[in-house]
């Protein structure tokens, strides 16, 4: 398994913080670990749910299907399709970007690809229940709807800049 740089940095930082904390005050550090564990315990069921659903969705949406949805022409429909697919799934960037590059190379338009990336990162239907738990129904729905709409604007902007 490839371990990315940001994960290494995150672990280094965490280890340093933990050692520093333990040197300063053992009791408080123990308390911090307990609090972390408690927070994890609260969210673990949702984590599991999200991951299982994402795995099923991802296996249905392999590169081939993605190219079929986005690839052929970059009209309104493929953009909408890109937005819908991007909104369901939650794909980490280091998978999404190479796929996006592949899509661009195989002739997909900049607008659908940029829409796909934006919705992928900003809109999450699968994570919605989790978001509702922390942000409430109103804020969670509102954020996802606004981000969905914004993704089209962002894609159009990116398209204009790329074609300057």
């Amino acid at each position, binding site marked *: 398994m490839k371990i990315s740089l940001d994960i290494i940095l995150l672990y280094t930082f965490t280890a340093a913080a933990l050692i520093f*904390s333990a040197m300063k005050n053992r009791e408080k550090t123990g308390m911090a670990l307990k609090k972390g564990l408690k927070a*994890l315990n*609260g969210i673990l069921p949702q984590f599991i749910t999200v991951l299982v659903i994402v795995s099923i969705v991802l296996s249905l949406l392999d590169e081939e299907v993605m190219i079929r949805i986005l690839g052929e022409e970059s009209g309104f429909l493929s953009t909408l399709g890109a937005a819908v697919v991007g909104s369901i799934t939650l794909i980490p960037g280091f998978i999404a970007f190479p796929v996006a590059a592949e899509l661009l190379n195989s002739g997909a338009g900049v607008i659908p690809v940029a829409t796909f990336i934006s919705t992928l990162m900003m809109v999450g239907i699968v*994570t919605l229940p989790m978001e509702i738990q922390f942000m409430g129904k109103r804020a969670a729905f509102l954020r996802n709807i606004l*981000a969905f709409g*914004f993704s089209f604007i962002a894609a159009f902007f990116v398209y204009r800049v790329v074609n300057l």
Partner: protein
Amino acid sequence: MKATLKKYTAALISLGILGLFLILRPREAPEVVSSLKYQFGTMLEIIPPIFILLGLFDVWVPRDIIIRLMGPGSGFKGGLLGFFLGSAAAGPLYGAFPLVSVLMKKGASFPVILIFIGAWSTTKIPMFLFELNALGYRFAIARLFIDIIGILFIAGIMNFLIPQSEKDRLYSQCSPP
């Protein structure tokens, strides 16, 4: 026991769906399994550091500091701090939500929280470097630029549309009396 079962209902249902899927579509099974492995790998990778940092943050950082830096009167600087905290993060968006609740508890203002979530979702620095490589600098920089504007707009609109009573409710659910 009953409470635990209730907490895990959704997880159990999703596992049930997974089981059905594996039985009904055996051809896709290897793909699901490898995807599942990968997803759980990512999750296991980020869980220890995120929750340790969350605990340390909760214990060591006093509320008045967060109120001063990111609270209701923090203005532009508070927003900037929220933006950088979110951008410096690693891991998918679902990792942000537990931190949101600690930030709320410590008194960060609602707009700052919204900016933090927005930044976490799209302007993460490591991801940007990766995008730069994969899709070219025009694509990546244009998207970063418009995303920053979008994050601010979305935060502004949400802050305006969500009534104070709802904000109060969210904050009170983060800090049990």
